């Protein structure tokens, strides 16, 4: 005869729940601390320096609920994504050319390194002098500031591909398209997703600078308005729009990573 304790099944469940709460607490705690410090400061400093986060929250709701203001957020998001996509396509093509030809690599590498040294603000100035259209100016700035990183990251991914695996796939005599589909794309995908994650943060900072100087709409433009009004709650609310966007896209990229890269072995011992 065997007996089963009613506690036997509930104990692991309780432990799992506790672990989940602990994980959530660990990830939320830093934000809670920052919020509390800010809110505490708002009790002692003038509103234009440290506004209450409740005010900031309502300003965020205003932005979400107002069509005109939310259109500014969407315009900025579109500019970031268009700039990143442009830089990724051009950077990916350059990386392919560089990996195929040493001469192209020797020619392009110094130029891209030079571009990396040019501050984003300089590209803003160049774009204003060279181009008339606001959207093209911003697109140009976004592409030029993220192009070197994308190119070098894709180049590194292509060069880091396993020679053994490449040789194995070659032994089956694939067409170029099949070689790309079965070998190159899956091999470089992890590095490409990392490149997008890194460049997304860079692009969201650059777009604000570009809009601040050269645009008539968008989060950067709205931030300039808040600065002129000395409206810190507004400035924070507009900044948070970009932060939310970056967090959502980063979350989506992480979700893709977790789904696509489930083939990876996970060690029980962390680094």
């Amino acid at each position, binding site marked *: 005869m065997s007996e089963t304790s009613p506690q036997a099944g509930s104990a692991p469940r309780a432990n799992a729940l506790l672990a989940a709460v602990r994980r959530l607490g660990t990830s939320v705690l830093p934000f809670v601390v920052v919020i509390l410090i800010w809110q505490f400061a708002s009790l002692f400093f003038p509103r234009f320096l440290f506004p209450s986060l409740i005010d900031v929250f309502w300003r965020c709701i205003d932005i979400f609920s107002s069509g005109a203001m939310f259109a500014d957020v969407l315009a900025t998001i579109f500019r970031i994504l268009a700039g990143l996509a442009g830089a990724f396509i051009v950077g990916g093509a350059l990386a392919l050319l560089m990996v195929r030809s040493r001469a192209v690599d020797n020619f392009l590498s110094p130029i891209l390194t030079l571009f990396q040294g040019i501050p984003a603000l300089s590209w803003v100035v160049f774009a204003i002098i060279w181009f008339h259209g606001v959207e093209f100016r911003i697109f140009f700035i976004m592409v030029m500031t993220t192009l070197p990183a994308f190119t070098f990251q894709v180049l590194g991914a292509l060069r880091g591909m396993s020679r053994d695996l490449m040789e*194995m796939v070659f032994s*089956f005599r694939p*067409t170029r398209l099949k070689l790309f589909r*079965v070998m190159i794309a899956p091999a470089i995908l992890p590095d490409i997703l990392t490149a997008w994650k890194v460049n997304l943060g860079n692009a969201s900072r650059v777009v604000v600078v570009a809009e601040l100087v050269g645009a008539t709409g968008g989060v950067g433009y709205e931030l300039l308005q808040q600065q002129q009004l000395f409206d810190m709650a507004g400035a924070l609310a507009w900044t948070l729009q970009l932060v939310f966007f970056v967090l959502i896209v980063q979350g989506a990229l992480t979700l893709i990573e977790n789904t696509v890269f*489930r083939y990876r*072995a996970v060690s029980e011992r962390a680094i």
Partner: protein
Amino acid sequence: MRDIVTPGDAAIHLDHVTKVFGKAGSATAYRVVDGLNLDVRPGQMLALLGKTGCGKSTIFNMIAGLTEPTSGTVRVSGRDPFADFDSFRGRIAIVFQNDRLLPWRTAIQNVELGLEMLEVPAAERRATAQLWLTKLGLGGHEHDYPHALSGGMRQRVSIARAFATNANILLCDEPFSALDESTAGKLRAEFTRLVKENGKTAVFITHSISEALEIGDRIVVLKRPAKIAYDVSFDTGTGQEERELIRSRIGDVLAV
């Protein structure tokens, strides 16, 4: 005991093949293969034996069409495997020293790889891959990723991948050297049975005399740079005493 194959009959024909790495004539030039002549008849299982660095893998790569000879002629089924690279799609299969499975593909997807290159319809591809995995004792592991399989299981998948395309020529580069002796022994026996059953022509690179005697029906021993030092053919009728003589002779050649 020397095997006579006329070039016209040969499945693999190497005529005065030389391979030099580095710029020919320069101080850094390194001659790996030196005027090698070798013919392998259809259905033959040739074991290429030699010390490390004697050019076995270079010969292997030239037969596979992955490397071009510096001089001489390489022909597989009458054609140049390097120049006519694409025409050998599905005709040459390779089992490498390590399994070389694509980590992002499951076992069955890895076996399907060669069939995908041959544009085999998905259902047929899946059925063929399943059949070979089952033949190699991997039923139930079709959807496991390589990291979840043991070294022996991974090498079985790579053998299944090579057999699935039904290629006439099978090239094997020390495929069992990374496995423990017990697993290697079992796989070797299975492998030999499958090659014979399916009438493949196989070139099997090894540095183990015992493995060469167990697998091959012909053994070619190479000296450095790759040139034939000893060439012997035998069959199932070859007695133990004669095999020991062959072993001893190979040992002498390798000791030089």
